[in-house]
């Protein structure tokens, strides 16, 4: 019995392919990044060791920190705008009896379209002359806004598109958690005279905190790696207003051939992500029960 489950050959057979691929595409690139991050490699001539020079440069590189700030906008928008909306709409959908399936299907719909197609589509929504937004504002006599071309608006425009794409995905997750709550709890509260709003606020919301915590975590992870929607919609413009960490890093390495500096930036991004994870654990997750996801 135990012998069967201790068969080392089978164990290796089951574990090694994963570890191999994982090592090749995660661990080895990390080591490589550290190695190249300490050099001035330009992709064409042999790399030269320059110590922490790239990191010193990164700390003084204003453009990089602007891109970091833009990623933070994604996080803040997710946590303070998307998450409350996600909770509201999940509660609403869970409360209705008719059309529940229809709502669920529809809100999830954007999640299955690919980001670049959504980017192209929304470029037209933001189009100064044919776009929905300006047509709508035009009825109220508002001058056309150059959503994606005005540094003041471009970031917000992308954040809205990003929310449009992903909110449904999270709503479906949260909704499943709400529907998994035993009915008796709510029924008992109803008998005690709690209104619908009170029940949602006092009973359901606390019960779904674990999944909310997961949604926040996934949003942060998503915000840290966001790049495709920016590349498709604004290419980091106007005048660098929507540049994010990943696009800045890729640009440095590929367009300007600064592979050494680019990989150093990737290590910086890694460090920022670790820092955020730690902050998140301290601020939020520790108060929650541990959830397996």
């Amino acid at each position, binding site marked *: 019995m135990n012998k069967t489950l201790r068969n080392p050959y089978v164990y290796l057979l089951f574990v090694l392919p994963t570890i191999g691929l994982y090592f090749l595409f995660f661990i080895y690139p990390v080591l490589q990044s550290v190695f190249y991050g300490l050099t001035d490699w330009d992709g064409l001539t042999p790399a030269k060791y320059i110590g922490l020079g790239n990191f010193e440069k990164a700390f003084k590189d204003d453009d990089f920190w602007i891109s970091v700030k833009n990623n933070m906008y994604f996080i803040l928008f997710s946590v303070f705008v998307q998450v409350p909306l996600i909770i509201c709409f999940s509660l609403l959908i869970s409360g209705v009896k008719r059309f529940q399936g229809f709502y669920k299907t529809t809100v999830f719909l954007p999640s299955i379209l690919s980001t670049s197609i959504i980017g192209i589509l929304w470029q037209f929504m933001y189009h100064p002359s044919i776009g929905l937004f300006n047509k709508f504002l035009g009825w109220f006599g508002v001058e056309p806004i150059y959503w994606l*071309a005005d540094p003041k608006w471009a970031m917000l425009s992308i954040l809205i598109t990003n929310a449009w794409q992903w909110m449904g995905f999270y709503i479906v997750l949260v909704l499943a958690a709400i529907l998994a709550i035993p009915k008796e709890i709510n029924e008992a509260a109803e008998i005690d005279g709690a209104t619908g709003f009170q029940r949602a606020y006092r009973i359901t919301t606390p019960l779904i905190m674990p999944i909310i915590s997961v949604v926040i975590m996934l949003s942060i992870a998503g915000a840290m790696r966001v790049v495709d929607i920016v590349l498709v919609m604004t290419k980091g413009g106007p005048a660098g207003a929507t540049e994010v960490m990943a696009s800045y890093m890729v640009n440095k390495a*590929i367009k300007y051939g600064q592979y050494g500096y680019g990989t150093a930036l990737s290590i910086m991004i890694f460090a920022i992500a670790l820092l955020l994870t730690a902050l998140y654990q301290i601020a939020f997750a520790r108060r929650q029960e541990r959830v397996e996801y």
Partner: protein
Amino acid sequence: MKKKLITVLTTVTMLSAILSACGGNKNEAAPSTSPSPSPSESSSPSPSDTPSSPAAVERFDVSLRHIQVGELQRFRKAILDEVVKKSEAEVPGAKFEMDAIEDSFNRWTKLPAEMAAGNPPKIFDLFGGPAEGQKYARANKLLDLTPILDELGIKDKFTDYSTFVVDGKVYGLPIGAGSEGWFYNSDILKANNIEVPKTLDELEAAFETLKGKGITPIAMGSQAAWVPFMLINTLISRYAGPDIQAGVADGSRKMTEPEVVAAFAKYGEWVKKGYFTKGELGIDYTGQTNEFIAGKAGFLFDGTWRISTFNEDGTGKALHGKVGYFAMPAVSGGKGDQTAVNYNQNNGYGFSSDVNDNEKAAIKAFIKNLYSEEYQARGFKEDGVLPSMKVDPAKLTSDNPIMSEVLASNAAAGTVFPHFDSLVPGPVNGEFEKQIQNLIAGKASPEKAADEIQKVMDSELAALK
């Protein structure tokens, strides 16, 4: 550890076996769509080109990266297609595998990445200058074309390929030449009683009139900074003289000189006054062209390669016969020759240094066919591309009125000046692009923009020493 590595390798191979079953194998003996190699083109000078035994010709692919994407480029694409067809016919087994990629993506993303990886296509669109062609040549990524040029006897046929030369060797060949200047929509000008401007004052008065009528004065798409850079490059030359580009590049002149700042200031003034397309930072080069074609803007600052767009059968046929061209007028207080025009021969083809004999033969045929008097003349006639080779002027005919205006304005020029990007290192060009967009977005003053660019230039010059 070793065992682990072996397993990794086995896994990878195993997976590859699975996947190759899914992915179509491109090396199957696919029926060739190209015309079978035939010795038809008797004009070919080297007898080795013609196969004596047609049997058992091994097929090989020659990757060719070009930038003739979309409707606007179709004349150029047609010429390229012909050249490829001819070359395939001349070199037995050669199959040119064409890969079309949009210009700036190829130039700034794809090609640099491929150069670093060491796997560029065999033939590719290439820009010269220290940031691109010369840098790749120094890293031994480009094929030295000097022997091929000697063999084909066309070495002295080119007017100027200096931006592709490193240590006396030629690494790229300009496909054509271009000037950058003002295009105008004569219908719009007429309707608003505007004469074709001869001075800067008249030009600015025209902008003001159009703006007052609710017409965009200048079509502009500055999402990619190289587009507004064209106008800024010419403005800087007007204010600071036609030798400013070379001067900044070798350190003898500075971006911080008051004349250069004045050029930035003039551009900034035009931005502030609203002379450019609204939302220009969100519009790309094609969008800019489209706006002008749609008759929504009075002027367009662009290169002469744009001329064919306004042909009878071009995408801009709506404006056929209604477009004129003039060089940037003189500016008051400008240094140096105020008639100088921009003249670039910085874009063409480069070739990978990693080629075998077969591929080399294909490259030779490609060069021989493309860089010929015939195509130079046709490019001129059909496409408005100024020749990069010395072509018998009698063959350079064009019934295109815009072309005659370009030729007249170029003939009137005392000197020519290049573009910054063909002379300054990559990081400086990058800073230029950044500061130009900052200037447009109102995030940088003219002084600050010039200052920042000079800083990067200084550090590049210091690194050279």
